[in-house]
């Protein structure tokens, strides 16, 4: 499974970002290989439509799950259309959010 985490920093010890569309980085995590790749969010600098830009970017990376506090209506429409679901998380590190997701998936 491939996961995108809206993140404040470039590794999994970073905090999950407070927003989806204008987060600084996305951490792309491949749960099979354990590989983590940080990419800058192209929506971060947009004057408008940041949520759409970020959602398009994430969808283009072929992820199945997004970890973020919540989604705006436009980002939600894009991710829903692309068949990507949200695992809502806030106030924790990316690693903690991943653990939480794994726990919930195994239940």
């Amino acid at each position, binding site marked *: 499974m491939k996961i995108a985490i809206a993140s404040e920093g470039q590794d999994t010890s970073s905090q999950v970002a407070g927003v989806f569309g204008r987060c600084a980085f996305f951490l792309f995590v491949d749960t099979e290989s354990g590989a983590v790749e940080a990419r800058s969010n192209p*929506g971060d600098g947009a004057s408008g*439509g940041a949520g759409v*830009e970020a959602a398009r970017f994430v969808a283009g990376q072929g992820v199945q799950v997004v970890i973020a506090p919540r989604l705006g209506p*436009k980002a939600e429409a*894009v991710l829903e*259309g692309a068949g990507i679901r949200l695992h809502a998380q806030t106030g924790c590190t990316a690693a903690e959010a991943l653990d939480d997701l794994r726990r919930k998936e195994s239940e």
Partner: protein
Amino acid sequence: MILAVASGKGGTGKTTLAVSLAQVAARSSSKSVKLLDLDVEAPNAALFLNPEIHERRESGIRVPEVNPEACDHCGRCIELCATHALADVGESVLVFPDLCSGCGVCTWHCPQHAIREVEHVLGTLEAGTAGDIAFAHGRLHVGRAQPTPLIRDLKRWQLEGPGEGIAILDAPPGASCPVMEAARGADQVILVAEPSPFGLHDLGKAVGALREAMGLSVGVVINRSLGSDDAILAFCREKGLPVLLTIPFDKGIAAAYAEGVSLVEARTEWEAPLADLLDRLARKEQVA
């Protein structure tokens, strides 16, 4: 002569000055006078002028609609869209009309001709008269996010090119696209500023947008002066901005405003200074 009355900060006195200038011009000048209220998110000049509306029409932009049968998901429209109004989610291309500027570049460049344009209404435009003043304003519908196309459309509808008459444009506040669209083509911009730190900060932003970025001729009217406007005067000196007029703080003006009575109606002694200001601007002499 086209005069745009604008401000960085809101609530500095744009409308009361714009309305007063129109009233003075209608009384003192033989030229035709027009007032356009371009603050389409909160138009209020009509509260002072009580115009009779003769014409009304809807205004909007044309937004794309993608035919899923014809679309081959090449991504060209998404690549070209400057406002992120389109997203391809596999099965279909989603359109977000709230983000669209109506530029038409997606329709124009679609290799499959899969896009047609549909009307997206943004608001209502109205035109009429208030005594000798020709009046028009626009009103953005609640929930709509794009004032700029409405402002552009109102100017196209009601403003002829530079002519013999006097057109006064009551601009929206701020320093972004709507005020720039409102002031575009003006012979002179009057920035109404209040001598507070917030007022000075936003005056700087408006000067940056309208004079530095657009190259418009800009002058300043200080409103609600308490007699010591050192910071704003120093700013104007440093930037070479002419101070066109200073209006003192006067509770009577504010009380009249709250009753829908303009500056010049409440304080008739302002008629001569405003007529003189119009005269100076018409002769392109700015410095008071």
